[in-house]
C-alpha cells in the first residue's frame, strides 16, 4: 500500500487552493451547461415537410433474413406522391454491425416497396432516404425492435 503520511493541511496553501477551486468548479459547470444546451439545440431539427410516410413491414414480427418494407407517400392534402426515389439503410442499434442496404421501387402511384436482408437478431433502425421528383430530399426513420434470430 501507499506510504501513509497523514493528511497535510497547510493553512495558507489550503486557502489559496480553495480560492482557485471554486471559480474552476463554476467554469466547469458553465461548460457542462453550455454543452447540454448546444447538444439540445442540435437535436431539435425541424420536421422535414408536410409529407406523410406510412410504413408497413412484413413479416411481423421481423426475423433474420429478408424483410419487405412498404410505404406510402402522401402530400399535405393526402394525394399520393409519385416519382420519388428511395433508398433503404438498415442498421443495428449496436455499432460495428453490417448494415442492410436496399432500394425501393414504386409499385403503384405513391406506393413503394423495398427489401432488406437482416443479418442478425436484435434492434434495427431503418432510414428511408427519399428524394422527390422536385428535388426535395428528406429521411424517415423506422424502428424494427426485437428482430428474432430464429
Amino acid at each position: 500500500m501507499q506510504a501513509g503520511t497523514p493528511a497535510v493541511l497547510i493553512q495558507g496553501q489550503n486557502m489559496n487552493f480553495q480560492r482557485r477551486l471554486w471559480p474552476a468548479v463554476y467554469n466547469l459547470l458553465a461548460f457542462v451547461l453550455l454543452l447540454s444546451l448546444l447538444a439540445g439545440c442540435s437535436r431539435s431539427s425541424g420536421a422535414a415537410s408536410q409529407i406523410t410516410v406510412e410504413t408497413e413491414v412484413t413479416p411481423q414480427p421481423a426475423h433474420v433474413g429478408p424483410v419487405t418494407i412498404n410505404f406510402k407517400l402522401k402530400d399535405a392534402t393526402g394525394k399520393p406522391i409519385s416519382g420519388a426515389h428511395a433508398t433503404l439503410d438498415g442498421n443495428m442499434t449496436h455499432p460495428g454491425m453490417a448494415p442492410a442496404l436496399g432500394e425501393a421501387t414504386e409499385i403503384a402511384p405513391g406506393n413503394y416497396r423495398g427489401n432488406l436482408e437482416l443479418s442478425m437478431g436484435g434492434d434495427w433502425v431503418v432510414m428511408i432516404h427519399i428524394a422527390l421528383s422536385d428535388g426535395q430530399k428528406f429521411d424517415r426513420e423506422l424502428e424494427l425492435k426485437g428482430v428474432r434470430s430464429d
Partner: protein
Amino acid sequence: MPETGFDLLRVPVLGRFLHWRHARTVLQVPLLLLSIVMVLHGLFGPSLAPKNLATILSWVHFRGLLVATLLFAGNFFCLACPLMLVRNGVRKIFKPVWNWPRFLRNKWISLVLLVSILFLYELFDLWSSPWLTAWLIILYFAAAVAIDSLFKHASFCKFVCPIGQYNFIAATVSPLEVKVREQQVCTSCTTKDCIRGARNSELVVIQRGCELALFQPRKTGNLDCTFCLDCVQACPHDNVGILSRLPAEELTVDPMRSGVGIISRRKDLAALALVFCFGALLNAFGMVRPIYAFESWIASVLGLNRETPILALIFFLFLVVEPLILIGAAAWITRRLTGQTNSVLAIAIRYSYAFVPLGFGIWLAHYGFHFLTGLFTFIPVAQYAVAGLGKPLLGQPRWSWVGFPQNVVRVFEYGFLGIGLVGSFLVTHRLAEAERGNHRRAVFVVWAFVALLLWCAALWLMSQPMEMRGVVLIGG
C-alpha cells in the same frame, strides 16, 4: 543475475522512442484529440450509434484494441491515457494538497464503479446512444481531473479508475512487465529515484518517481502498474526495462509486492478478479437471446414490469450468488481435503486469481468479436462525419466496409476461450501444487472443474445467436 529475456526498451527505434521523456505525451495527444472528436460527434453528430464516432470508437475499436494490446504486450493504454495529459495540465494550476484517505486505499470504490458501468451499459443501452457515450467520456475526464486536483500522486488511477483496474487485472496475463534489469544495481542504489523522483542539485524534483507507490526492486507483476515509464525516466542507472515474462505467472506467486501488498490477503483484489471473470460472462450474456427469456421469466415470476430491478437481480445472481456458490464450495472442499487451518475465505481469495486468465479469454472473445466483425466501420463513419461538415474530403462513405465475416471470427472466439481455460488450469495447478498433504491433485481437480463449468457457460453463450436489443421486456 541480470534479466536476459526480451526487453522492449532495447528494441531499436521503438525502445529509443519509449525512453524519450516526451514519449508519453506524444502518445497521449492523439488520443486526447480523438476523445474531443468523439465527444463532439457524440453530442452533435447523428444519433444513430453505427454512424457516430463516439459509439463506434468507444464500443467497438477502443475495447477491441485494449484487450488485444493487453494480450500481446501489456498495459499500454494507461501509458497513452489522455486523462492524465489533461490532469497534468490542470495540476500546473491546482497543486493537490491532500493524501488519499487511508480507509479508501483499496479497490472497493473502483470495483463498485466498474460494476456500475457494466450495469449502466445494460440499463441505458450505452452502446446505442452516442449522446450518453459522449457524456460518459466527459464525466470520466471530469472525475479524473477533479480527484487528482484534490489528491496527491495518482489517486485516480490507483483507487478510482474502473478502466484502470480492469487493465491492471488483465495485465497480469500480459507477456510484458516493467521491471528492473538487474537487482544488484538496485541493491547498491542510494537515491531510489524510481520511487522518490529524480532531483536536481537544489533538490527540486525534475522527474517524478512512481505515482502509484511501486518501488521497482520490490515490484512483482503488473498489478497497479500503468506503464507510465516514470521509473524508466527517473532511474539514473538505466536499470528499468519492459521485459518479457511468462504470462499469468505472477498469479501463482504470493510475495510482498511493493504498493500492493500480499494478494492472498487482499479481499478487494480477489473480488476484482472474480468480477473480472464473472462480469465477462455477464457482459456476454447481455448480448444473446436467452437473456430476454430469462428477464421475462423473472418479470413474470416476481410480477415486475420495470427493467432496473430485474437487471439488478441478474447482476446480483451473476456477480454475488454464483461466485459465492462456486468459489465458496470449491474453497470449502479444498479446506476439507487439505485439512489446513486457513479459513474458507482465505482459500477462496487465494484461488480467485486463478480465474483471471479465463475471464480474460471471455473478454477477448466478446470484444474481439465486435472488433473484428466491425474492424473497418470507422472508415465510412469518419467519411460520413467529415462529409457532414460540408465537404466530403475523405470521399463518400463506403458503408459496405464492415469487417471480417462472423464465421471466421468465431474461430478466434473459441480460440480465445480455449487459451483462457488453459491459462486458468495452469494457474490452478501451480496453486494446488503449493498445498500441503497428499491431496494436491484432488484440489486441482476441484478448481479446474469450476473453471471448466465457467468455460462451458462461456462456450454456450458464444454459440448463441447474437441479439442486441435495447428494450428487453417486449416479446419475451
